């Protein structure tokens, strides 16, 4: 069972990685009458219309699915059922999974949809993992007793505030990120040798993080995403991924906080503290190696739920550009034509199988972690 699930997951990842080489309207290899070879698939400008006339070439090798996901062939090819053949120039090609309302090939849409789904969910979960595990882990480790020199707190708040200004008012996100990084790094460097007599501020980190989690959890995620994605002036895949990531960090934060707190109370960790090891060593030798592996389970569940979220959003037609076809947006077209069952069946099946395999994998990882302990 788990083997099948792993194999299917690898297949999905491969399809996602190789999408342009599986479904593309440009041929992979073209051999001219005089024997010269060209590789149109790597050329940006190459137009698929050039290769319709098969007789003027010696050989044309196409990708397995000779369509691009945004390729509109002809108005009479709309809503073609699976395996129907169409005439493209002098070539007859099959739409193995049928076409949608604009005569785009469903198989091509699904192959590229896989790439988009995986990209969005991977990016979103990386972001969520980063934010969540750092905030949650710090809250669990430092509790409400974190101390920081006043000037460093001031520096960090200043950096954070100005980064917000850069991002929200001037929309220069790179500069904002750079500034945040500068703030973090400089405070890590400066805190090594605090001068004696420096005033320290007490930071209620645990309370703060818990309140943040509460705020984020009590906002109905889908409702907020509906509201938020309507404001993305130019919606992009990355934008949606960032939005999902920023909204779903709480699951990682809650988990890693609980985990770190549990480990921190273990006798051997307490003993290490009493025997005089400094807190960085305790974190590195005892807590992190123990707290990180279980996060994998949360990560896998997170990926499956963000795939679900992304496809739900694109099913509703929110968050992504209209011409960006994904599994969800392909599926939603069935509402316009109830007879086009293939539009409902295949994309949904793709999502369903992926989510099921991810759930299986997460269960498996969880079991193997538990048996290891």
């Amino acid at each position: 069972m788990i083997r099948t699930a792993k194999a299917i997951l690898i297949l999905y990842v491969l399809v996602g990685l190789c999408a342009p080489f599986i479904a593309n309207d440009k041929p992979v290899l073209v051999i001219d009458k005089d024997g010269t070879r060209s590789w149109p698939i790597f050329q940006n400008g190459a137009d698929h219309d050039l290769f319709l006339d098969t007789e003027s070439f010696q050989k044309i090798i196409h990708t397995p699915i000779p369509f691009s996901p945004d390729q509109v062939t002809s108005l009479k090819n709309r809503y073609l059922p699976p395996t129907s053949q169409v005439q493209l120039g002098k070539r007859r090609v099959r739409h193995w999974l049928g076409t949608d309302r604009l005569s785009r090939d469903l198989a091509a849409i699904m192959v590229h949809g896989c790439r988009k789904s995986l990209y969005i969910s991977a990016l979103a979960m990386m972001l969520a993992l980063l934010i969540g595990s750092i905030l949650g882990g710090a809250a669990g480790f430092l509790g409400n007793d974190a101390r920081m020199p006043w000037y460093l707190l001031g520096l960090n708040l200043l950096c954070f505030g100005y980064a917000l200004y850069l991002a929200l008012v001037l929309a220069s996100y790179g500069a904002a990120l750079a500034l945040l990084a500068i703030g973090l790094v400089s405070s890590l460097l400066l805190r090594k040798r605090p001068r004696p007599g420096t005033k320290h501020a007490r930071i209620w980190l645990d309370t703060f993080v818990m309140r943040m989690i509460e705020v984020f959890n009590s906002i109905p995620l889908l409702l907020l995403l509906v509201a938020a994605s309507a404001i993305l002036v130019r919606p992009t895949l990355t934008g949606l991924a960032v939005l999902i990531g920023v909204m779903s960090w709480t699951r990682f934060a809650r988990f890693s906080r609980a985990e770190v707190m549990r480990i921190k109370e273990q006798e051997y960790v307490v003993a290490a503290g009493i025997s005089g090891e400094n807190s960085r060593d305790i974190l590195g030798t005892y807590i992190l190696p123990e707290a990180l592996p279980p996060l994998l389970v949360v990560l896998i569940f997170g990926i499956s739920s963000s795939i679900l979220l992304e496809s739900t959003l694109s099913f509703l037609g929110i968050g992504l550009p209209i011409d960006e076809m994904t599994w969800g947006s392909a599926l939603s077209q069935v509402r316009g034509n109830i007879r086009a069952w293939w539009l409902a069946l295949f994309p949904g099946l793709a999502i369903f199988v992926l989510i099921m395999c991810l759930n299986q994998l997460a269960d498996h990882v969880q079991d193997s972690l538990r048996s290891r302990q």
Partner: protein
Amino acid sequence: MWAFALRRLAWAIPTLVIALVLTFLLTRITPGDPVIDRLSKSEAESVLEITDDLYATTARQMGLDKPIFYFSVLPCNHPSEIATAPPLFRPLYQFWADRSKNCTEARGYIEAFKQLRRDPAQAAQLNSILARWMQNEYSNRPDFGGLSAQNKDFVDRIYALSSRNKSLALYVPSFRWWGANNQFHDWISGALRLDFGKSLDSNEAASTRLLDALRWTIVVNLASILIAYLLAIPLGMYRAQYRNTLFDRASGMVLNLLYAIPVFWLGSMLVVFFSTSEYGAWTNIFPSVGIWESAPGDTFGQMMARNSGRLLIPIITLSTSLMAYISQQMRASALEELSKEYVLQLNAKGLTQGRILWRHVFRNASFPLITMLAGVLPATIGGALVMEVICNIPGMGRLMYDSVFSHDWNLVMLVVLAGSFITVLGILLSDLAYAWANPRINLSER
């Protein structure tokens, strides 16, 4: 317990306020403009032909001429007018201000622009150029023939400006305080008096629209949660009792499948295959979801009776995935209880299996189910949104969906408020129910 509930509710207030501020700011920086929407509906003019006076009066009527929030942080070369400028011209003003050295210079351009637009003849000339500017096309300047002297002077100034780089003054933020005279203050002080404003779209009170919609969402959600729990509890308990039998494994596999089915897929499939006679007469099980029947003057009960068949698909869909999740949890927590020593002792005492299972194990195993209710509630609201869109149910999710697209911000705010409130309430209720079911829990410590 009541003290705990009250304290929890008090904590919920800042949470709700933050959620509301966030949503409010989100809605106000959206590209859409409700004022233009309304004007183009009633006056049916091209957007650029709406005079500034007409725009200003309508915006004032709708309360949208004020600054958005109590304060704003702008670059120091952006004059304050930008914060209250019509959304249509805001990008234009921002583009000019970005390249100005200071507020005075930027204000000069804006004032000159307003001056020119006040004269209809001049404004008409300017409109063709404006369309280009709004697309951010300043680069190659076409030959605008026949401009009046004033217009030509202004256009020359703008083109000279556009070739400049952005001013470094952008990087100096400056803080503008607006006081209580702002849109958010208006909204929140109304909301405290339970006046949530009018729907910008239909001019009905927003709360009436919400309450109308909420009834359907509550009916659908309650029914599916109830069905899900009623099916899931016995299933989970008996699977734990007969663990590792064929029945347990087979149902476990089916439940895993059901759990992974996306709600919108199951819903769409039911609609596609089982609500038409397209694929054979026997598949036409459910009424078609397309049209929502209603007669004028219907009460909610009559509407309900008329359309109850249409609620079947959403209820079946929502309860299926919920049921799968709950029964897996039920089984896990019952298994944990069954392995405890008191069960062995009850067995030794000679109690029947059914009595042990339902009298003793169930009560202890049901704690996680109660806390789960808190997560279930928001999740079903999310699921209901999708199902309401698929099945055309005029519920809360559908309302939100429609009002976001028609820039009906008062409704959006109210729906988010209601959604957050229900979520907070769900968490609180589950905490209280947990304490009620398990008296060992001391709430005052949490």
